[in-house]
């Protein structure tokens, strides 16, 4: 069961296999679909044996945005999941796009990250070329055109919020390229829980503290009611004058204190033999990273 590529032929000479690079095409950048057939064959082989191919890590998120009296508040949780395992307990889902425009990303983590980074670079180049500060509508337009081009295969849903010359604006962009412009928005797996809080208590032209509390409550609802969201609440308050990135604004889920010690006493396991092999190494750099165990 061999799948052949159309590009360079492989020749066997004795026991040596070499590839003749006789391609006459100049190499171009961008996505390369050379390995999709091979991957399909590999996945079919794996699933016959009962294994499954690894999945892309999704963020399994609750992200929310709100327009209040002076600007925009964006909120997000901080858990990244890999199917049913928590891959990152404290990741940053609110990405920088422009000095007054930030973007929350849900969906596949890598796609959201790369998409927002590319948008940030494009926005900077565009505003240098026009000589004006960027508009949130411009960011949304570039995002939706790119996501539509890839027909939803780039799995990132984003909430773009910021303040520009037209005032505070909030847009949400879906992976297939559609967008919404609304005064409050939620996306991600915990969107239903968060939007219920918004629907209940949102009023136009809220004050800053009241709005921050409302976004915090919405994200907390997502954290408690959705398995894919968890850990802390991050907020980003964007007004015309300032941007406040409040990382770890609230930590509704604290790990409980253990009452007893569950460690085995040294000497519980009998040591039968011991061999020591010294390795001659030079210490180049020493750094300590504390893990939160126990």
């Amino acid at each position: 069961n061999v799948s052949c590529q159309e590009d360079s032929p492989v020749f066997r000479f004795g026991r040596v296999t070499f590839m003749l690079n006789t391609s006459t095409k100049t190499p171009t950048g961008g996505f390369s679909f050379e390995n999709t057939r091979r991957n399909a064959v590999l996945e079919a082989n794996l699933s016959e044996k009962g294994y499954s191919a690894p999945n892309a890590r999704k963020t399994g998120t609750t992200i929310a945005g709100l327009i209040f009296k002076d600007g925009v508040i964006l909120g997000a949780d901080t858990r990244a999941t890999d199917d049913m395992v928590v891959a990152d307990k404290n990741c940053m889902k609110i990405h920088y796009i422009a000095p007054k425009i930030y973007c929350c990303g849900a969906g596949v983590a890598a796609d959201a990250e790369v998409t927002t980074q590319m948008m940030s670079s494009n926005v900077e180049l565009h505003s240098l070329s026009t000589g004006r500060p960027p508009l949130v509508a411009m960011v949304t337009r570039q995002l939706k055109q790119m996501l539509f081009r890839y027909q939803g295969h780039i799995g990132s849903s984003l909430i773009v919020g910021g303040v520009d010359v037209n005032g505070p604006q909030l847009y949400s962009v879906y992976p297939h390229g559609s967008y919404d412009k609304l005064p409050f928005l939620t996306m991600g797996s915990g969107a239903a829980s968060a939007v219920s809080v918004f629907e209940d208590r949102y009023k136009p032209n809220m004050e800053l503290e009241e709005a921050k509390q409302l976004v915090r409550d919405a994200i907390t609802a997502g954290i408690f009611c959705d398995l894919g969201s968890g850990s802390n609440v991050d907020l980003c308050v964007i007004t015309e004058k300032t941007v406040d990135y409040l990382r770890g604004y609230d930590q509704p889920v604290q790990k409980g204190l253990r009452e007893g010690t569950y460690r085995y006493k040294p000497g519980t396991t009998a040591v039968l033999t011991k061999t020591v092999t010294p390795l001659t190494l030079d210490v180049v750099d020493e750094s300590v990273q504390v893990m939160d165990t126990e």
Partner: protein
Amino acid sequence: MNTRGLRSQLKDSVPVTGLCPQAGPYGVQDSLRRGFSSVKNELLPSHPLELSEKNFQLNQDKMNFNTLRNIQGLHAPLKLQMEYRAARQIQRLPFLPSSNLALDTLRGTDDTIGFEDILNDPVLSEVMGDPHIMTEYKLGVL
């Protein structure tokens, strides 16, 4: 980037020749240069985006030229295409890396960053085309 009408134009503008048997100069499968042929490879694309990505730049240009012709008249796309052709002719030898700055400026992609700049950058590719074969192919003496 103008994506208006992209879906409707895709159906009749995507040439299927992208996947047809790779005919060499004599009309037969060119095993030496393009490897063995396989019917399955040629009938179906391996990924739903493969065809649309292969022809994306062509379709964009076609749509933009159509819009330009409708707005400004026939002379506008004609002049632009003449400039594209001129920029494409003055290039280095085919196996040497080229930044294609003139073409990028004409298309307007010199101040945008897309996946073609981040992924699979030709500058960083590990293999290089064989200089003799590529030059012969370009000169048509292959």
